[in-house]
């Protein structure tokens, strides 16, 4: 029997140590621990790595602190476009979705693509329709947005309009 293993991430960037308030840091640690606990439960019960990964990612998708699903950032057009991917090392099965907004857990849409579409990657509205046909839970757009992400968009668009230099790191923009 192999030794089980699990890791999670919630994004990277210039996370300012000096201004990260203790209560904010504590909440982030708590969110990461909740994801680990969900994945570990599956692995300890002898479940497959695929299920453990889905369980952990779903916890992070449901947590508005992290940039995915509930808490996703906005595009320049003020909409949200989410991407998700899942791959299994045993046989290299893979499924992904891109440019979607609707499924509460995009990682489950990626899994549906892997298990039920015969494809590897589906995009946009057709991917949303496929996920709906597979019975996934959908949410209104309002569920995914948060005031802090909307404020970040307004700030970035104002910066672009003013021509001020972009001082954020790439990881910040992407993380």
């Amino acid at each position, binding site marked *: 029997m192999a030794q089980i293993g699990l*890791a999670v991430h919630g994004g990277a960037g210039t996370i300012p140590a000096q201004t990260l308030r203790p209560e904010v840091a504590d909440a982030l640690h708590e969110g990461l621990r909740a994801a680990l606990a969900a994945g570990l439960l599956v692995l300890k019960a002898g479940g497959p790595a695929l299920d453990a990964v889905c369980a952990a990612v779903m916890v992070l998708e449901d947590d508005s602190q992290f940039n995915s699903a509930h808490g996703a950032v906005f595009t320049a057009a003020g909409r949200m476009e989410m991407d998700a991917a899942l*791959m299994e090392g045993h046989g290299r099965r893979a499924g992904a979705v891109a440019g979607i907004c609707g499924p509460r857990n995009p990682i489950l849409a990626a899994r549906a693509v892997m298990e039920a579409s015969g494809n590897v990657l589906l995009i946009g509205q057709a991917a949303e329709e496929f996920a709906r046909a597979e019975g996934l839970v959908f949410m209104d757009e309002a569920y995914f947005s948060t005031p802090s992400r909307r404020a970040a*968009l307004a700030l970035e668009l104002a910066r672009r309009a003013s021509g001020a230099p972009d001082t954020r790191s790439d990881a910040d923009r992407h*993380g």
Partner: protein
Amino acid sequence: TVGAVARDQAGHLAAGTSTGGLTAKRPGRVGDTPVFGAGTFAEDASCAVSATGTGEVFIRFTAASEIAARVKYAGQSLEQAAFEVIAELASEGGDGGLIAIGAHGPAVMPFNCAGMYRGCIGADGSLLTAIH
């Protein structure tokens, strides 16, 4: 962007990544998350990887499969391959980090920016999390 990598009792690996993209991105822009071999990858013979950062660079340099190739063909440890690839990406403008796990041993979580929200389970089952 969020992600997870796992190894189960049968020794099988898996990787998953999910993202909202980047703030004020061009509509239609897709980063490395759904590009297999860039932001997400899993192969029992080498490793499982989930990345977060400058998607365009992680795609162009096929970050995840680069790590897998070094493990499989160059005989590098997962730690050496992952840390070297992340360091090389930094010099190409690829800020960010990744988590990876192999057929044996602990997960690795390298990053080349100030911090990465990350966590893993220790050998004793403890939940370890970090930011910087």
